[in-house]
């Protein structure tokens, strides 16, 4: 090993080793008394070390090294540059939150039939896998770490395997993850063939013909897009993510999807040399469709965790809109706007990790306290669990892209990138980008509608079931993990200029130029291109908002009538008692107008059945991706397989004939 190892790399190794250590210690839980505590402690160390390593990497030059592992002629290379550092921070922050959250949450499982050791051990492996993917500097280590991440997360999804739905979701996940991995492997194969080696350094130096570059890009886009959950390959995501325990859902939705985004950025912006604008168009279109379809399907869900999983599809779409814009502008020679697109995507990556993990942890807290995932059975939780309710509200505001929280900043940056399209020369591009911006705007507005639904139905109003009425606040650790993420959401929303200063190192190292104009006017002002083009000052906005609130409250409290009297809600003239909880609007009812307006996009099965004296309404909203993409593909594969089975005639002589033929062909090939 390199004797003068830089500190950032040492910390990164510590993070990986601590995660692996946590996986090892987890095997002893249930047998040794302190093992559970040590397991979470090591996981926390891993998260903290990853954050520290990432911060140092953003502030310094890239550091590389070899690991004493791998094949004799192909040692594993590790490299920590700003891009890897940024994603280490994303992984580390969420792992830290999950570590604080975990001990309280897994208490449910300690007395269950599923062993805690499996959960802890696969969590450790999962985190180690994600860290290694980010650190890898050759395709070999990348794919090994990728598989470690995919396989260990499969076991986490299937953890509660007594439910058939979980097994089904997990199998689908495993299948899709491996098809995706195959595409990625082929993509690396193309690069390696031209570069002559599996090391990323050699791939960077390779010169590809435009056609082969496009082939490599297409393979990587499909592979990483499958893992990230882009439409139409997203259908596994809402099946698999909700099936895992909630803190694992937070890791999967918050972080693992980001690792796929990392892979895509590394492959496209770093390894593939010359960017073509057609790639950007493809990414932009797929991203826009993902964002819109994700949020529309999310609106139709009433299972909280499924709903959040669909929102991951939406947010990944928004990230890819930013990346697509970046690719288009970079390829057409507008580096400032291109870097802005990349920065917007990276910012949204961080933001989505923060608020989606926060929301999943909140959903986990509800699940822990009430054993309910169905929105239609919740209600009034804000008064039962005030802290969780407060943090969840921050998450809702953030994900709905409302100022002054963090989701707004990244969408604002994406819009600013789109508004630079006047620089482009082609009419097609110039009219395509505004349409994408329109879809992004529609997505944002629908996301706000969706989170009004979630928060209004789950946390406000009256409890709809007894278990929810008796919900208890969760443990201090679980609350503080949510508080930690909520605080980060707020900070990332209020101080975008300071954050961008750090983020700037990524395009600086990756593309050779940063976005110095964005933060040129101090921490108070965010000016992406130039102050006269657009500016936003989140600190002043927050200050003004707080000041206005405070002044109006102060003035009104001094009014003639100060007291607030509690009374019954207006009951429309019902004389026998108050409006009951059953009279409230449900989640399905809330989304009904939107379901009707966008009806063509859903696979809807709505029927009214009369049985006995009563009437039953049934509604099932299915994902069109199944019938339009999955089922046809599966049918083709089955038909193909059926043809292949003709080889299997049961006759030994025929089999021998095939073997001989294969041997001859192989001999001919290598001769």
């Amino acid at each position, binding site marked *: 090993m390199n004797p003068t190892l830089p500190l950032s790399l040492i910390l990164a190794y510590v993070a990986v080793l601590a995660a692996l250590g946590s996986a090892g210690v987890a095997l002893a839980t249930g047998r040794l008394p302190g093992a559970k505590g040590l397991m979470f402690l090591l996981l926390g160390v891993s998260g903290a070390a990853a954050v520290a390593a990432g911060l140092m990497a953003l502030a310094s030059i890239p550091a590389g090294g070899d690991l004493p592992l791998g094949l004799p002629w192909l040692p594993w290379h590790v490299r920590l540059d700003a891009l890897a550092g940024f994603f280490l921070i994303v992984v580390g922050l969420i792992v830290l939150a999950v570590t604080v959250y975990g001990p309280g949450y897994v208490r449910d499982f300690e007395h269950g039939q599923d062993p805690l050791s499996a959960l802890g051990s696969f969590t450790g492996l999962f985190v180690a896998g994600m860290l290694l993917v980010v650190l890898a500097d050759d395709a070999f280590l990348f794919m090994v770490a990728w598989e470690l991440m995919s396989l260990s997360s499969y076991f986490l999804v299937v953890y509660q395997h007594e439910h058939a739905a979980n097994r089904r979701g997990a199998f689908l996940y495993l299948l899709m993850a491996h098809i995706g991995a195959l595409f990625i492997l082929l993509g690396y194969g193309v690069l390696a063939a031209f570069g002559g080696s599996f090391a990323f350094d050699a791939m960077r130096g390779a010169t590809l013909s435009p056609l082969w570059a496009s082939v490599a890009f297409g393979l990587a886009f499909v592979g990483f897009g499958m893992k990230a959950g882009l439409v139409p390959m997203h259908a596994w995501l809402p099946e698999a993510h909700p099936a895992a325990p909630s803190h694992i859902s937070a890791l999967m939705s918050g972080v693992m999807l980001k690792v796929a985004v990392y892979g895509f950025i590394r492959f496209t912006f770093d390894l593939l040399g010359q960017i073509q604008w057609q790639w950007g168009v493809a990414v932009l279109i797929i991203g826009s469709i993902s964002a819109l379809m994700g949020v529309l399907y999310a609106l139709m869900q009433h299972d909280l965790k499924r709903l959040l999983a669909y929102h991951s599809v939406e947010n990944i779409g928004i990230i890819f809109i930013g990346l697509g814009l970046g690719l288009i502008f970079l390829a057409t020679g507008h580096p400032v706007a291109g870097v802005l697109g990349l920065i917007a995507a990276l910012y949204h990556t961080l933001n989505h990790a923060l608020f989606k993990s926060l929301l999943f942890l909140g959903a986990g807290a509800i699940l822990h306290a009430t054993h309910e995932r169905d929105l239609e059975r919740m209600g*009034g939780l804000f008064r039962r669990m005030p802290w969780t309710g407060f943090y969840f509200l921050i998450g809702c505001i953030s994900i*709905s892209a409302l100022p002054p929280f963090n989701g707004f900043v990244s969408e604002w940056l994406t819009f600013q990138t789109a508004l630079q399209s*006047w620089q482009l020369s082609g009419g097609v591009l110039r009219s395509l980008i505004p349409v994408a911006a329109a879809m992004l705007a529609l997505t944002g*507005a629908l996301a706000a509608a969706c989170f009004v639904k979630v928060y209004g139905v789950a946390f406000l109003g009256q409890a709809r079931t007894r278990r929810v009425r008796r919900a208890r606040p969760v443990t201090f650790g679980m609350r503080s993990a949510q508080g930690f993420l909520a605080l980060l959401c707020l900070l990332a929303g209020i101080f975008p200029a300071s954050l961008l200063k750090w983020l700037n190192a990524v395009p600086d190292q990756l593309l050779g130029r940063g976005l110095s104009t964005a933060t040129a006017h101090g921490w108070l002002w965010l000016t992406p291109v130039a102050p006269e083009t657009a*500016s936003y000052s989140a600190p002043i906005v927050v200050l003004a908002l707080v000041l*206005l609130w405070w002044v*109006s409250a102060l003035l009104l409290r001094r009014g003639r009538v100060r007291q607030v009297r*509690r009374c019954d809600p207006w009951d429309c003239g019902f004389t026998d008692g108050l409006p009951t909880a059953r009279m409230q609007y449900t989640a399905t009812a809330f989304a009904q107008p939107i379901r009707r307006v966008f009806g063509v996009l859903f696979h809807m099965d709505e029927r009214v059945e009369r049985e006995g004296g009563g009437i039953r309404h049934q509604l099932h909203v299915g994902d069109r991706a199944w019938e339009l993409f999955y089922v046809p593909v599966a049918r083709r594969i089955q038909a193909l397989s059926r043809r292949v089975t003709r080889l299997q005639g049961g006759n030994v002589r025929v089999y021998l004939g095939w073997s001989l033929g294969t041997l001859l062909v192989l001999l001919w090939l290598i001769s």
Partner: protein
Amino acid sequence: MTVNAWLQVLLQSVLFLLGAPLLVAWVRRVKARLQNRRGASWIQPYRDLYKLFGKETLVAHTASGVFRAAPYMVFASTLLACTVVPLITVRLPSAAVADVIVLVGFLALGRFFLALAGMDVGTAFGGMGSSREMLISALAEPAMLLAVFTLAMTAHSTNLASVIDHQLISGLILRPSYLFALMSLVLVAVAETGRIPIDNPTTHLELTMIHEAMILEYSGRHLALMEWAAQLKLMLYGVLIVNVFLPWGIGTQLTLPALATGLLFVIGKLLLLGVILAVAETGLAKMRLFRAPAFLNLALLLALLGLLSHVILEAAA
């Protein structure tokens, strides 16, 4: 200079706060004249607000903290939105703090809390109002963003003051994109401020109300804040339309005569807009809720046409 400029922001907020009820009174009076009624006094909206501020505030047992925080949040975010729209002069320092996308964000923030407050008490009406409001806004917000993007792409800036400046400098050019954007923004404004044919601000009929359904449980000072915020929103959209599309007369310097001229011009333009609104409201009937998406899709389509015609026809140079 800068102190003066920020004082002017304060002045503008006060003008908005005082002018918003007056604009509502004007629209109501014109409507009354059109219906052969005498109509209420000019100061009736002020009287209503004063009355509500003095009344006892009732909060349902089932309501949580969100219900009590929402009026302040709605009021603060709407007023904040008002401070960034140039009213009497384009030399507005607050326009740099929050550009037009942030303005849309402020309005969305207020609406988010308004809709949550509607669901908080747990009655059927509140949820109904929230659900409808979110449908309308989900369709109206993208149309509004696209309409302002058309302006922003022409002026190469999302700063509202710069957009208006660009308009003033380039003079009166009839651009198709502006026409489309203007039509779209008018439709959006009608929908977002809850006017006929989307919503009727004077109705409490269960089957049709949207905005009123959400604030049905409010009383006293909470209701006063909600009502005031709604009036502010009406004036905000009015000012946005007249000052962005017809900015002539707006003050370009921070001198007293310029400000006075700007004030006179904006009052004249708003009065004219009020007449148009009153005539339209008298002539039109309220739509069914499920006709509203068609109305808003038209707004979205117009905005998109505006943007595309800008991109294809005007920016080719």
